[in-house]
């Protein structure tokens, strides 16, 4: 270990974040490796190490003997300060080498508030921020993940984006790079060739022109780049790469357990949910494959808990069969099984016997909206009788703490809908008095916790044209809801509307926002996802100084005919379908889930037949 690094480790909080050397981390001999990939997660170690995507890519890349993928996380502010003071550049945990020694520097973009960390990590690694300032066929900066859906605000800094699922396309790009390097071609030529691969978006090959009102006039491809960049998917999840083991952290991380992805996509089509549209179509793994993958991870990590992960695990069509199969070996190994979230209609006494869901302390459900009308608008098919039935089961099973998640600021929302949130929570509390068994009530009173987040309209959803409520309205609705909570048994927590506003700006931003991000890095802004670091005021100053109006992005209603900054990206779900869904939302009409009836979103026409799906 570098002596300078060793010294500063004594001076920072949780130094184990920065040391590497974890079991199952992969060391290779540099001399035997032809392509080196630094996989960067733009947040703390504890967050990044919990992320399933990195684990998949880490395994898949390193399975190739001559490729070496290493991990890089954002150092916390105390560590960053010491690193800058001592001239230590951002390094990868496996080799300890700085970012400047890597062929690829790849970021996963999980949410918009991590953009400032992406730039700061590049800077801390000594990499020129702008793509145009990196001339060589080396230090290629790539990115993928959900925010690649509208990558425009960060497009100036990234050489190429991966659109959709990266298991295959990432490796294809690495192969191309290797070939290009052998051939001695330029970076520009490499990018031109990469743009021909399905699922690769090279932003420098697209010219953006604007209308006088600031909206996008046209996106024009050049040098033979495709007009539409089609996403990649893995059609057969059983055959798709899944890691045999996880790097097991030496410090406690957020999700410190074996995680098994049981399917991709979601049958539900909640209209606010970007993941629900972008990850279509539904593709389930078979129970046998899931069980074998879980077993491999547990046997190589020592984890004693498995989390069955997906966008909505209780919708897995063979959940009972799967749980029975897992229990054939997990009981003897003293391994428990958990589901990350439960649907209101997916909760039963039989299920709770087979899983260790949240401990008896609390149980969380997400009705998302307080009135039936509002839930119909967002297509969240949860009804009050269902919730009533579910909490009755929960009370009978001994729970007396219920947490309910909602959004405020949804399209068409009225104050009546907001008040409905308090009423729904009160209903749950009353239900406890009416139906909870005597022995449960003897243990204490019920606590219902309402938690609200502010709605952020996202690209590739039916609400992509909608304005976000201004911060003042959101805050007013929060206060209104707080006033409507009348029982001491109901508690109300809300997420800060300021961060949701900034998220909304970048979620549907265009390339003009690149200047804002660059300036933010210069002014030392990072870790916007952390309360200790986030300051909307500092961002607003930058917007003012650069004469860019953030409300144009967050609070403006788009016309259905407007060219959206992400229109050249194709996730397989048609724009006409999204528009139909939006219009149905205005009429509070629901759309059946994909298992009941195909809604004609266009995904199957776009991506072809898949295994383990529901599409006709």
């Amino acid at each position: 270990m570098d002596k300078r690094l060793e010294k500063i480790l004594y001076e920072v909080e949780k130094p184990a974040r920065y040391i590497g050397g974890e079991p199952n981390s992969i060391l290779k001999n540099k001399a035997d490796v032809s392509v080196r990939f630094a996989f960067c997660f733009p947040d703390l170690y504890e967050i990044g190490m919990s992320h399933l995507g990195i684990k998949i890519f880490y395994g898949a890349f390193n399975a190739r003997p001559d490729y070496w993928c290493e991990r890089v996380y954002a150092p916390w502010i105390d560590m960053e300060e010491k690193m800058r003071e001592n001239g230590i550049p951002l390094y990868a945990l496996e080799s300890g080498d700085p970012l400047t020694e890597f062929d690829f520097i790849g970021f996963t973009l999980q949410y918009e508030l991590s953009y400032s960390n992406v730039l700061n990590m590049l800077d801390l690694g000594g990499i020129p921020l702008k793509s145009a300032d990196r001339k060589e066929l080396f230090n290629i900066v790539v990115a993928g993940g959900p925010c690649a859906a509208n990558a425009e605000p960060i497009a100036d800094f990234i050489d190429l984006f991966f659109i959709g699922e990266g298991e295959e396309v990432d490796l294809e790009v690495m192969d191309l790079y290797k070939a290009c390097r052998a051939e001695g071609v330029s970076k520009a030529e490499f990018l031109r060739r990469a743009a021909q691969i399905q699922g690769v978006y090279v932003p420098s090959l697209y010219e953006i022109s604007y209308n006088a009102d600031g909206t996008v006039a046209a996106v024009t491809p050049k040098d033979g780049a495709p007009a539409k960049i089609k996403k990649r998917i893995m059609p057969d999840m059983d055959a798709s790469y899944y890691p045999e083991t996880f790097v097991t952290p030496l410090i406690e991380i957020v999700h410190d357990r074996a995680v098994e992805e049981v399917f991709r996509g979601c049958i539900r089509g909640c209209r606010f949910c970007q993941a629900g549209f972008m990850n279509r179509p539904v593709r389930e793994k078979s129970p046998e494959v899931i069980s074998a993958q879980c077993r491999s991870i547990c046997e190589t990590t020592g984890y004693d808990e498995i989390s069955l992960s997906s966008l909505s695990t209780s919708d897995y069509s063979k959940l009972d069969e799967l749980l029975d199969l897992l229990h054939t070996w997990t009981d003897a190994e003293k391994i428990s099984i958990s589901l990350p979230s439960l649907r209101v209609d997916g909760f039963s006494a039989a299920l709770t016997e087979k899983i260790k869901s949240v401990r008896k302390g609390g149980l969380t459900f997400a009705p998302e909206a307080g009135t039936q009308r509002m839930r119909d608008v967002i297509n969240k098919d949860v009804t009050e009788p269902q919730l009533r039935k579910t909490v009755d089961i929960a009370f009978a099973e001994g729970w007396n703490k219920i947490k309910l998640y909602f959004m405020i600021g949804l399209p068409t929302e009225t104050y009546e809908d907001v008040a409905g949130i308090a009423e729904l929570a009160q209903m749950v509390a009353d239900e406890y008095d009416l139906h909870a068994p005597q022995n449960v009530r003897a243990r204490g009173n019920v606590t219902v916790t309402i938690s609200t987040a502010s709605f952020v309209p996202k690209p590739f959803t039916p609400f992509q044209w909608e304005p976000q409520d201004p911060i003042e309205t959101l805050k007013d609705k929060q206060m209104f809801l707080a006033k409507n909570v009348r029982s001491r048994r109901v508690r109300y927590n809300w997420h800060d509307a300021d961060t949701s506003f900034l998220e909304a700006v970048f979620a549907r931003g265009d390339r003009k926002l690149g200047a804002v991000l660059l300036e933010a890095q210069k002014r030392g802004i990072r870790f916007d996802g952390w309360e200790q670091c986030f300051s909307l005021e500092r961002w607003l100053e930058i917007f003012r100084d650069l004469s860019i109006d953030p409300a144009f992005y967050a609070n403006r209603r788009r016309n259905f005919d407007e060219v959206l900054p992400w229109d050249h990206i194709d996730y397989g779900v048609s724009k006409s379908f999204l528009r139909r869904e939006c219009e149905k939302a205005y009429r509070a009409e629901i759309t059946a889930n994909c298992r009941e009836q195909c809604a004609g979103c266009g995904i199957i026409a776009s991506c072809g037949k898949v295994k383990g799906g529901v599409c006709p």
Partner: protein
Amino acid sequence: MNGDIRLWFRKTGPLRFTSHLDFMRYFGRVLKLSKLPVWYTQGFNQRMYFAFGQPLSLGMSGRREFCDLTLTQDVSRGEILSSLRKYNAQGFEVYDVTVPEMKLGEVAFGEYEALYLPQNASPQELFGKIRDILSLPEYLIQKKTKARGGFKTLDLMPYLATIEFSETPEGVRAHMILPCGSGRENVSPKLIFEAIRDFSGYSIFQQIERIGFYDAEKESFR
């Protein structure tokens, strides 16, 4: 071997930057993966039972650390050691297993080797300052007590006086045996380091390793 056993291990390198709590979690996984027939507690949440002698503070290496546990079936010494080697973090190694001869609670002293590297002074200068401290009649410090926010005054001199200091080309080496263990006065080597640092006024970088344990009679802990 069967019943109570004592594992001896090293915790060095980058692993020394993991806290005791994190290290225990890691150790639990090592045991789980070893598939050794470790005795589990019998309560509602069954857990593998194992107990460490003394926690190592963050940043300190350990060359002869131990952990006690109980096996429910007979396993050979060789098998125990090889099963614990399957899943190692850099800097962790179980190098021996014995049948405990002394009880865990009999630990009374820890033995440490520290290297003080002055950053803004020469080793000679630092060594001189240490000699100056040792010539004092007493060296009083405020030591935190277990009670919240509590402090008490402690004279470090009796402990300082037993330490062997030697000058090296890089800094000053210190070999010390200090009281530790439950129910006794604990004197952490950190207090010694802080005394030297504060008295000298130098900025000092410390490398420290615990190399063994003793019982109250200064018999090597077995």
